[in-house]
């Protein structure tokens, strides 16, 4: 018999302010809430990964940054730490391929079963439908995971994480343009009732987030909420992207652009 895979589901995470690589204190404590997207920006080596791994490892003042992670405002109990270690965070990385040798539907059913979903087959069909909404080119139930294109794999990973993953926190490392509708993907993930943190260099994604954290020298330097001016910039950029996609789609089927 397998144990039920039920995890505590905090509505809010707080990282207490730590210090940067020179020992100077961080700006303030950072709260992450369900239904809110936080974008993480900063050059390579600035400390984005450190911040993410502080969340993942349930830092208790014992990591190089000195931060402590609180669940719903209090330190996790020993039992919660034990249960959540390595499972607090689901990750969507830049990985674009599956390696398991299984058909799409069988795999999704296996995943739904591992979560003790009441009707695994129905859950699997829902994920497949959501993935096909995101993917530029639809794929079938019996397609092998390893035969999916990069875009299709990515769409399936996103839909699966949104609808089936157990982890209460979702960490996204960039959503590529290739073959996936980014805006729709974010909307789907937002509905998943997870705390979402997204490392990105893409201006549309960064501006889609409710707020942006800018990391520098190992600590968060700026916390920026999206302004009205930025919201209109986002609209303009999103319009440009839509135009790009429209022209791309037209060119692919032999259309003429006027």
């Amino acid at each position: 018999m397998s144990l039920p895979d039920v995890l505590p589901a905090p509505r809010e995470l707080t990282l207490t302010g730590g210090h940067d690589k020179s020992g100077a204190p961080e700006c303030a404590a950072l709260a992450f809430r369900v239904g809110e997207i936080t974008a993480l920006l900063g050059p390579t080596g600035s400390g984005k990964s450190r911040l993410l791994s502080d969340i993942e490892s349930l830092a208790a003042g014992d990591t190089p940054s000195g931060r402590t992670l609180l669940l719903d405002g209090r330190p996790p109990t020993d039992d919660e730490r034990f249960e959540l270690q390595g499972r607090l965070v689901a990750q969507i990385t830049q990985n674009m391929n599956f390696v398991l040798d299984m058909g799409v539907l069988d795999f999704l059913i296996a995943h739904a079963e591992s979560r003790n979903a009441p009707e695994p087959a129905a859950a699997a069909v829902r994920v497949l439908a959501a993935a096909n909404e995101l993917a530029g080119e639809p794929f079938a139930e019996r397609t092998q995971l390893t035969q999916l294109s990069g875009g299709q794999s990515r769409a399936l990973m996103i839909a699966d994480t949104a609808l089936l993953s157990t982890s209460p926190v979702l960490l996204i490392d960039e959503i590529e343009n290739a073959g996936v509708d980014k805006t729709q993907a974010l909307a789907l993930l937002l509905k998943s009732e997870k705390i979402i943190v997204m490392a990105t260099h893409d201006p549309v994604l960064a501006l889609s987030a409710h707020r942006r954290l800018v990391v520098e020298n190992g600590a968060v330097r700026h916390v920026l909420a999206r302004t009205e001016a930025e919201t209109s910039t986002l609209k303009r950029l999103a319009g440009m992207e839509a135009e790009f996609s429209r022209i791309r789609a037209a060119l692919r089927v032999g259309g003429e652009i006027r």
Partner: protein
Amino acid sequence: MRLVTVAGPPSCGKTSVIVHACRHLLAGGTPCAVIKFDCLKSRDATAYEAAGVPVSVALSGGLCPDHFYATNLEEAFAWARGTGAQTCVIETAGLCNRCSPHIRGLLAICVIDNLMGIDAPEKIGPMLRLADLVCVTKGDLVSQAEREVYRHRIRQMNARAVIRHVNGLTGQGCQDLSRILALAPEAGENLTDRKLRFAMPAAVCSYCLSEMRIGGRYQKGNVKKAVFAQSHGTQLLDNAPGETEDGDVPS
């Protein structure tokens, strides 16, 4: 001295994971030592030495590596104690997936990687089933969904083990692992009269004694003949080696 056995299929990352964990132990002031059992060749001493961990490599050569391991446990333990180690890790080859080197009452770890295929947890057998802690490596190379399904398959094979995702390349997760190692049960002064968790495969046929010719007339001793017929579906062993609830072999 605390003793920990680590088993897992070849190239799954056992050495990398142990090196990282030992580094954390050493940094925290716990002297440790490693004994590596392997078959023909091992370069692992270099990795341990570079991390400042005393290591002794034992090669089984022409013998069954698991029998060789069992027959050398007392001596291995004595060597590690002689180094002044407080925690000793024994890393074993884990080749035929039939064996489990784990010892009753002492911490048992199985390392398995995310790239091995969905049925791997079932195939690996007792070294996974009887482990207290399962470390899953190479998770960075697969999707979240694959990690979760794989974890579930491991859980189905071993309902009680702690499962941890670790990264042998970056060392992520190994600090947590070192904390678990630091809590491993004390083994005392020696291993004499302790018991393995699972019986080793029986042997002693003419091929154990270096016979190389093929043919019934050269086969003597403990010889088992298979029945060859068309197979369908899943095959199970008729008389699987026995285990009790807590994973121990009945005496």
